């Protein structure tokens, strides 16, 4: 399989790399090591730059005004965009724009007018409320939030956990059980305005990712209209699941960017730091760690680009996307861990970005489906069965 980028892809990669190194990295010297955002002035200036570059709104489909990138090019960009301190969870501080919530591309025209188009213009923000205190790895069965019909309205009660951005959102995609089916066929997606009576952002949830919090939500007899149903009643899980599959490739690619940057730092340190009369780079123990890093990075990159290319060819890529997510998140964690070991004491400090990546990469092995669920997905496909 040929993973050499085309001339156009190479040009895009070099443009993004230059942007990260010349525009993003210098700003981080003055920011707190755990900073999650830029000043409004810098944010606006850089958004203007990415718009000039024609890259704003990377994930917006072409028919809605996006640049129409294929999955491989998007993955190559994600690898570059994460190569800075905040890059894993906030690549380039969001200056390439968001895509709204992808599920809304399937919404009715009225729903698009009310939610999707304002989100694409940056006038409204949405959040994705799926996970509950009862579990996140198997959301179809874990959902306890219930919605029942009362005349023309739906009444929703329950709670959600680890929801990002709910406190700043204008609307939420809320998944609730609407039938007695205990699995995926009893879940409906609702678009809920966050100022609806009964919608509560209860608390901030602090995690290892100490620059960005999640929230806990509660719904207290929240009433929404029939028009707020997204897609079909009792078919909402397919909407959620589609997102989970498609997200895995850029999610995995972002992990690799951080690993590449950590390896670059480890190589530079090993070639400049002396101990016991010779450079670290001359010691076999360090050489092996550097080599193991390189193997992990190339393996992960291969898996991500294979999944991306299958997606671009219109082939099934469910197994490959699961493998890419599993390999990239685990391999990148090992790479950063070794890079910290090579750096010694300074590797543990907030003077370098390694400690932040170490904490954040740990979450990547759980977020967007834990490693064990990725293995389950692959096993189902390889063994050809659907196991309960």
């Amino acid at each position: 399989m040929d993973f050499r980028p085309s001339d156009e892809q190479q040009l895009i990669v070099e443009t993004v790399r230059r942007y990260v190194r010349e525009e993003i990295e210098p700003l981080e010297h003055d920011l707190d090591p755990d900073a999650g955002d830029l000043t409004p002035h810098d944010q606006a200036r850089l958004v203007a730059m990415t718009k000039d570059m024609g890259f704003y709104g990377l994930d917006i489909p072409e028919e809605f005004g996006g640049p129409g990138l294929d999955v491989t090019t998007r993955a190559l960009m994600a690898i570059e965009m994460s190569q800075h301190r905040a890059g894993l969870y906030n690549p380039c501080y969001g200056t390439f724009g968001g895509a709204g919530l992808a599920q809304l591309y399937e919404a009715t025209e009225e729903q698009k007018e009310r939610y999707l188009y304002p989100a694409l213009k940056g006038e409204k923000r949405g959040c994705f409320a799926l996970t509950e205190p009862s579990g996140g790895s198997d959301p179809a069965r874990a959902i306890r939030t219930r919605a029942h019909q009362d005349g023309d309205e739906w009444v929703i009660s329950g709670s959600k956990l680890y929801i990002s951005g709910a406190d700043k959102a204008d609307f939420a995609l809320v998944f609730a059980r609407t039938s007695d089916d205990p699995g995926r066929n009893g879940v409906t997606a609702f678009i809920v305005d966050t100022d609806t009576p009964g919608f509560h952002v209860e608390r901030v949830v602090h995690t290892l990712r100490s620059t960005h919090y999640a929230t806990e939500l509660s719904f207290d007899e929240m009433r929404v209209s029939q028009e707020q149903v997204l897609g079909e009643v009792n078919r909402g899980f397919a909407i959620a699941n589609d997102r989970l599959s498609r997200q895995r490739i850029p999610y995995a690619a972002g992990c690799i960017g951080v690993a590449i940057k950590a390896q670059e730092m480890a190589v530079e340190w090993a070639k400049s730091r002396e101990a016991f009369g010779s450079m670290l780079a001359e010691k076999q123990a360090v050489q092996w760690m550097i080599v193991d890093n390189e193997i992990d990075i190339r393996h992960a990159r291969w898996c991500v680009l294979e999944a991306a290319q299958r997606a671009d060819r219109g082939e099934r890529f469910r197994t490959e996307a699961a493998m890419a997510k599993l390999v990239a998140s685990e391999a990148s964690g090992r790479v950063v861990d070794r890079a910290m070991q090579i750096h010694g004491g300074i590797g543990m400090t907030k003077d370098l970005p390694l400690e932040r990546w170490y904490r954040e990469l740990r979450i990547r092995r759980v977020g967007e489906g834990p490693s064990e669920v990725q293995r389950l997905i692959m096993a189902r496909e390889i063994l050809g069965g659907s196991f309960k």
Partner: protein
Amino acid sequence: MVAAKGITRGLQPLTAEVAAALPGQLGVYEVVAEGQTVVIAHAGGHEPFGLRSALTDAAERWPGATFRYETTHAYVTRWQELLMLHEAEHGRLPVANADDAHRIGGLT
């Protein structure tokens, strides 16, 4: 309805002597002057001596004030949480946090 909690430690006089005895750790703090919270801030990774140096500086800026603090590694998200909590309770941010509105959402 909001389940978030503020800093539970009691208020102390904000003086150079009290600040000098604080731990040099990362954390968050709240400065209260004339019964009003004037700032909610954090001692982050660039602070040379964590809460100790951050509150030594604060003592010069707000003489006669009181303060409370909390040590935490999650100083950014805890700071944002305290700002949201203050806004939910008082309908506005502390005076010295007026420029931080874009960093937070709302607890309801």
